[in-house]
């Protein structure tokens, strides 16, 4: 082999190594890049809804490019909705698929009503929010509660009144969000002797007749938000395929304020 050929062979080998290196870097870089962008985007809101005051310094980044979160924001996660999250899916229990369409047992119904009562000051009060929330927008609530979500035994109930979308107007979190757990800064719990109305069952005109609706339905437009697959297990309908609920289940007169609607009725002086 001539010296010239040896040199050519060496540069060819070098070029191959170099090409392999470049290719590997490009391929892995491409995928890492994709990955990185996706995780960053998932941590932030779309660019454009931010102002100079918000969480991201838009000044340093060209428009359309999301930047890394700042340390202060990492801190904020400590009391956000994901603060207690550990990614152990084994903790979740599977609901047998067949069970979802079987009629609920009396015991299941009682359990569901107890759960329902626990989050309401009285039957008919808007439920409190059983988890911390961010202060931002209704969009954050509707991400889960818009479509409704059931993953194994975890439920985010579906909104029953989509036209009313200012969630925190009626629903307040049971606790927080609050920047500190310093007990000295929090007042002692309040004492209140209020005893609220409790849920009742619907009535049946004859044995086997469909029961009446045992609660008010004003403002609500979606029975399946509670009685469908993303509702409390014990409240589910056994016949979700029949979609016109009020065809068979009449609103209970006691809950619909009919008497109170009539002028003069209920106005007598005590």
């Amino acid at each position, binding site marked *: 082999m001539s010296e010239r050929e040896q040199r050519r062979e060496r540069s060819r080998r070098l070029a191959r190594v170099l090409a392999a290196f470049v290719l590997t870097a490009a391929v892995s870089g491409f995928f890492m890049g994709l990955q990185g962008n996706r995780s960053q985007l998932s941590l932030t809101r779309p660019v454009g809804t931010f102002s100079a005051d918000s969480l991201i310094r838009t000044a340093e980044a060209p428009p359309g490019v999301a930047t890394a979160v700042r340390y202060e924001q990492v801190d904020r996660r400590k009391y956000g909705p994901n603060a207690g999250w550990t990614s152990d899916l084994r903790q979740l229990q599977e609901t047998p698929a067949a069970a979802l369409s079987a009629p609920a047992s009396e015991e299941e119904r009682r359990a569901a009503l107890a759960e329902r009562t626990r989050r309401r000051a009285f039957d008919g009060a808007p439920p409190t929010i059983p988890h911390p929330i961010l202060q931002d927008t209704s969009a954050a609530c509707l991400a*889960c509660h818009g479509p409704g979500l059931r993953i194994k035994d975890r439920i985010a109930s579906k909104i029953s009144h989509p036209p009313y979308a200012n969630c925190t107007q009626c629903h307040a979190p049971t606790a927080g969000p609050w920047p500190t757990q310093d007990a000295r800064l929090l007042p002692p719990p309040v004492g209140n002797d209020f005893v609220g109305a409790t849920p009742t069952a619907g009535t049946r005109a004859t044995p086997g007749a469909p029961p009446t609706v045992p609660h008010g339905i004003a403002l609500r437009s979606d029975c399946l938000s509670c009685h469908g697959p993303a509702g409390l297990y014990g409240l589910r309908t056994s016949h979700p395929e029949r979609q016109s609920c009020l065809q068979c289940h009449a609103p209970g007169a006691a809950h619909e304020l009919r008497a109170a609607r009539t002028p003069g009725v209920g*106005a007598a002086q005590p």
Partner: protein
Amino acid sequence: MNLDRRDFLRLSALAAATAMVDRRAEAAPTSPAPAAGIRWQKAPCRFCGTGCHVQVGVQNEKVVAIQGDPEAEVNKGLLCVKGYHVGLALYGQDRLTQPQLRKNGKLTPISWEEAIDVAARRILAAPDKFAIYSSGQSTIPEGYAISKFLRGGLGSNQTEPNARLCMASAVTGFLSTYGVDEPAGCYDDLDHCDVLVLWGNNMAEMHPVLFSRFIDRRSRGEKPLLIELATRRTRTTPFADHFLLFKPQSDLAILNGVAHLLLAWGKHDAAFVEKYCSFRRDTEKPSLAGQPMSFDDYKKALAEYTPARVSELSGVPAEQIELLARLFARRDLRITSTWCMGFNQHTRGTNVNRLCHGLHLLSGHFGRPGDAPTSLTGQPSACGTAREVGTLCHTLPGGRLVENAEHRAETEQIWNVPAGRIAPKPGYHTALMWEKFCTPTDKGGDLRTMFVQATNPGQSLPNLHKLFRAKKGLEDKFLIVSEVYPSATTELADLVLPAALWVEKNGMFGNSERRTQQWFRMVPPPGQARDDAWMILALAHRLLELGHPGMKDRDGRFLFAQKNEAGAEVPVWDWPHYYDLNVDRALFEEYRRFSAYKHKNLAPYDEYVKTRGLRWPVVQQPDGSWRETKFRFAEGDDPFVKKGAGVQFYHSTTKNDRAQIWFAPYEKATEEPDQEFPFWLCTGRVLEHWHTGTMTRRIAPLQGAMPSAYVEMHRDDAAERGLRNGDLVALRTRRGEVRLPLWIDGRGQPPRGSLFVPFFDERLLINELTLGDIDPISKEPDYKKCAATVARVAPNPQP
């Protein structure tokens, strides 16, 4: 398991969220009770000035449930989180149930007879050194009883409502523009407008039901535009199409800037202005009347408010000011403006109210559904009681004035009291009243006995050290407080009277849109708690017994004598007989005779029983029915507008059916940040608590969501000072210091250089720090602007 990334994230959030369910804050356990047997009755909500109607569910003489009233026009069945829980306000465990007198420094239970006697003798000893401080939460009959007792009985005008602290600048704004108080428009404007401009009004938290009434239109496919002007980001901001962040006090400049652009572009409504308006500016010494100015002078005065200059003053980009002006320039759009405490609690509150009305008039955005400048109230009857009945120190019922001899004579006539009984000199306005009460007698503090009803001045007055806490230790001062719970006010009280609350008594309120509402007593008050109106009647009768000559009318009858249908005298001052007849109805029917003078005509009591309120003027139709008015001064709806007039300002201050377009300059705030106190301090409210929190802090679902006051700060300001979220900080102004947790990116987000503290927390009295400087015309204090500084006291123990 097949999860895509989005599902996985949702699942994570969901699992975390449900894992954090906190037992501590759950609703109280309830004992079973059948839903059957719940009796439902209507009542306006006890809390804010929106005036939603609720249906109150009563069982076994207790409130057990609340529903939004589907028949109510205001809220159409919807409520807010406070409204849904309003029933719980009655049942806090520390309800006051017995009269208490301070003996040797300690509040000691006494009988009602003794309590009324002690109070009456204090008044008798020095009637001219006695004052009543009532409230926009006092019912209409309560306010009327107070006014008649003081002015018609004691011959004194020392009465003020706490509404001076929240509504007075709106009143002077309306009076100086239209010659008569209260909005021309109503909530229907929110259904009709194409653009809603919120002037410093965090509507999502303060008037949530009205806010929903507007934004829910988006769910129906409409696209009304929401423009928010504010000094910080709030829960309203995410809903706004345009957010104009302005520097405190520069609202004056922005309003002038928009008016200037309209004129510069020739886009003001020349025909409307020509026909219905004239121009006015203030006198050297600020006054309600001001002085006329020509259109040319008006134009000249505005010339300096160019977009560049306004932008410099306000921090709002010139394009955004132009955007606002472009909207007001379009006659095809309907524009509604709302405002609340941002405008009113302002050392130039009257002027900024005037300018907002002026902008609507100049641009012709007035008199059509959806085209209106409307002020919102914070209290359920600030309009009905404080403003219409007139519990202010200078007003007589129905918009009459103490200083006007004719008005006094008319009032004396209706009250059947001797001529000259009503004193011609107004009493002290709120700030002065409390200053006089808290100043030692030998240093000119000439008020000795104060009777507070349905309000909590110990927490809500500004500059509390000077205007309230200074009472402590003044031996000859005597504070009588009618309250439902122990409060910052009862803490210094010498005599505490337990009051009936909301549906524990009959009542009437008047909301922000001129709607008069009525409800009946549904449950008995706890213990010995009694109605506020009864307290006034009982005091008056005791004074009669003690020989005060003013408690009799011209015919020698007791001022508040009542006869039943059979014509027999009913001793309503005697508690067991108070509900023998409907005292509310009797007082209202008497008050109603005052209402026609300012065309605020009211219907008979029984009409309000039938409805969910009626908006005045309410006039009787030929068929005998009673018709309310939605849009005042507009032909076709307002029965007092002449045919063919189009729009008629029939109470014009210039007596020519014209409204006044005012010019008022931008002026600096009375205290601005400096080197020592580098921050603006703003105070206000939060969704879950109502005003001083006396009721809402005792409602677990509300208190759990918002447990304590806090101070909001921009993250960069915090970073610069090495402060972290949750640190305990000392907030200081020239008037005092309060220690609060720091909240970065919390409920609201102030810009750099600004702080915000809510005032609901009685443990952390932010009003010990506020300024107390007042508007020269309305005498309303500024709670929104003063200079403050912050330093760390202790780091967050669990950062």
